[in-house]
């Protein structure tokens, strides 16, 4: 089980959290204007990174808030967690 550092509550066990998928995917402001290909990109296509991955988590059994995290998907180690709206912290590429 992962230990996850909620930016609002601190470190808590994974059971308190719900995974929210890849982070920094903005919903297009005018979906009707989008081509089918771009809509597919938004809806279904994911980076599925092997290495550093930016993702959303929600502290459902705590503060209830969404936040973002950088995690290495090979080691499952968290590199950083940060509040929604804050820029993605820089992480060395391919860090293991």
């Amino acid at each position, binding site marked *: 089980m992962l230990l996850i550092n909620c930016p609002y509550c601190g470190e808590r066990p994974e059971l308190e959290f719900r*995974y929210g998928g890849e982070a920094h995917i903005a919903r297009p402001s005018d979906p009707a204007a989008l081509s089918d290909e771009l809509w*597919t*990109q938004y809806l279904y296509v*994911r*980076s*599925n*990174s*092997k290495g550093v991955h930016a993702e959303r988590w929600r502290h459902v059994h705590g503060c209830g808030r969404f936040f973002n995290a950088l995690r290495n*998907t090979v080691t499952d180690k968290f590199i950083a967690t940060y509040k929604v709206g804050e820029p993605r912290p820089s992480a060395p590429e391919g860090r293991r």
Partner: protein
Amino acid sequence: MSKFSFGALLRHAAFGHTHWEPQWRSPEPQAAYEVVIVGAGGHGLATAYYLAKEHGIRSVAVLEKGWLGGGNTGRNTTIIRSNYLWEESEVLYEHALKLWETLSHELNYNVMYSPRGVLMLAHNLHDVHVFKRHVHANRLAGIDNEWLTAAEAKKFCPPLDISSGMRHPVLGAALQRRGGVARHDAVAWGYARAADRLGVDIIENCEVTGIRRAPSGAVTAVDTTRGEIRTRRIGVVAAGHTSVVLAMAGLRMPIESFPLQALVSEPVKPVLPCVVMSNTIHAYISQSDKGELVIGAGTDQYVSYSQRGALHVTAHTLDAICELFPMFRRMRMLRNWGGIVDVTPDRSPIIGKTTVPGLYVNCGWGTGGFKATPGSGHVFAATLAREEPHPLAAPFSLERFTTGRLIDEAAAAAVSH
């Protein structure tokens, strides 16, 4: 390579079994092949076998970054069934099931396919409705699936507790009698041996590191840790690493990779005659011929390539198993492991062309790829050989995520992952 037979067994026994040969070669990669398959799991090896056998394409290399069958082929719970809900899936998985029935003979290798029946338990009214819907849909498609009352289910699987005092009472079950299990390693080995015999080169410890393309965009070669290999057709069958391999050609996929866990118990005498699955409380279990209980757990919630998975996921499944079969409460689990499964948004596979000329993909089998191995290889080989989708593979194109014609087995999966 000699054919396996009773006579061969006797001959080798006479010499103390000291003269068995390796079952496939370990060739150096050639400079070029007609088709290169990336990934020597069951699906990749089956693809190579059918390319050589049915389409006469024998200049085929299967590249594997690790060892043969060391990925999800060696990490699953070996369950075989074809009782899917939608027509497209039904015919695809049934195609595979029919191939399973004659596979040992076809490959001259005992894959230990054992149609012992797959029993899916219904614990509430919703389950009853859903499973009856599956039964009707399957029977309309000519696929065996039948509804059993709780008493009939108990008769088919005596260890089942159908008393009403259970926390999750059994109200009935759907049974596919032709469903069952097979020996997962034997499937990889059998296909490897048969493909090798037809001239396919299986190259282990050979990781693909790049995909080369002509100015037109078409593929021309793969870069590997054992040098460049030229080819005009590449079939990527890399399961959890599909996104990684296709990124080498600049493609992004509608796929996410998750760890899926399984575990086995200490071996015991035969106690469980069939495969038992329970969607509602998330448990599936069967007993291997060695006597171990083989138990499948769920996926972790987050994207990962770690091949581990969290303990609370397995604990949750064991809770469910102990609830269903109280007699297993004191059994010890011997091993657990994780495989990285490639999950699509509609939980159906992707088989066919990509937007890059010459680059084909067979992926997205998610949490249930083992059962499809022969059928998957068969239709993908035809797709690669004819350079157009096999009719059974056509609905599973990558374009469906753009056209919106999804094959939504997400709600129809045996256990919800």
